[in-house]
């Protein structure tokens, strides 16, 4: 007896009587409630691999910079962070780009909750990157972790605020690449500040005087406000 014949014999022997209440049960089946945490977990696989790769690359640069001894590592990461913001914006606009907004608004998880979940995941990712990169760099170059975190976060938050604001405007809705332009402008701005002698002196005195913490708090609050406005007006945003 060959393998296929043997398998078919088993298959035929395990012939169960037809279930009589199957269709009735399935038609009445309703999805149960899903907690916010579980919903967030369910959204994680939908975040595309390049997002994780970029985050891993940034952490890798932080560690490599610390090992090699590149003193400008914090600023380099600060310049890369707007890219993660852009990636986040691109992820948020995915439903719109693939014309799925209308469908997602009618599905079990609304477009609003999906965008909120994506923003939460991306924000959490940025926090993780900062939380890992800052102490690693600070420890290697004898800097304060808080100041390093400020340098990393400020360009990221600025990109987020401006991009979210523009994305809600008619200009942003028509132009899908506005966040890329914003990220480029923010990166250029910080590059010019950090590369010019006057700029770096002013910047250093700004963040060492405690103004950096206040600036990050204000920028963080503004980012949350912009995210809230985006989620609240998600139908228009779509």
């Amino acid at each position, binding site marked *: 007896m060959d393998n296929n014949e043997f398998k078919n014999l088993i298959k*035929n022997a*395990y*012939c169960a*009587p037809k*279930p009589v209440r*199957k269709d009735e*049960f399935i038609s009445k089946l309703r999805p*149960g409630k899903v907690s916010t945490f579980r919903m967030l977990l369910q959204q994680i696989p939908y975040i595309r691999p390049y997002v994780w790769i970029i985050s891993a690359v940034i952490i890798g640069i932080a560690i490599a910079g610390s090992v090699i001894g590149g003193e400008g590592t914090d600023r380099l990461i600060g310049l890369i962070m707007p890219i993660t913001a852009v990636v986040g914006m691109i992820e948020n606009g995915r439903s719109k780009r693939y014309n799925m907004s209308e469908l997602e608004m009618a599905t*079990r998880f609304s477009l609003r909750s999906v965008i909120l979940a994506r923003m939460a995941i991306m924000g959490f990712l940025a926090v993780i990157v900062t939380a890992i990169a800052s102490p690693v760099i600070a420890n290697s170059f004898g800097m304060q972790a808080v100041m390093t975190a400020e340098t990393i976060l400020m360009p990221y938050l600025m990109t987020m605020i401006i991009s979210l604001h523009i994305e809600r405007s008619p200009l942003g809705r028509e132009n899908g690449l506005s966040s890329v332009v914003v990220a480029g402008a923010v990166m250029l701005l910080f590059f010019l500040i950090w590369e010019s002698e006057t700029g770096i002196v002013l910047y250093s005195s700004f963040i060492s005087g405690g103004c950096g913490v206040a600036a990050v708090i204000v920028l963080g609050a503004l980012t949350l406000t912009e995210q809230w406005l985006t989620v609240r007006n998600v139908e228009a945003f779509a």
Partner: protein
Amino acid sequence: MDVGKIYDKIYRYVYFRVNDRTLAEDITQETFLRYIGKYGNAGSVEIRYMYTIARNLCTDEYRRIKPESLSEEMEEIPGDSGISEEKMAVRQALEKLPYEDREILLLRYVNEEPAGTICKALGISRFALYRRQKKAEDKLRRELEA
């Protein structure tokens, strides 16, 4: 995976544990309700969890009712009166296998589950699964040839 297909798989799995159509349907539906209650959605089912739930429910049922009252209906499948001799012989040979072996053959060949799913549902390693599957197949072949 289609919910209807999952229903059939779980129902078949339960039926060959309890040998009672009504009870099998009750347990299948209870499995779905418990899964949805815990994981939220039957559309994106992790079937291994459903097998585990169904298995536990069957065990509870065995504890509640005497096993003898559950094991008599296998040959009385409605609409299956014209059962062939060959099929009957295979069923009798399967009856001689330990339940664990029959369970593996059912999951592997009838429900066509991948090895990974079966391992996770039964809580065994891949090596153990292949060893037990091979043993069960050899035993069944011997029974059929006898």
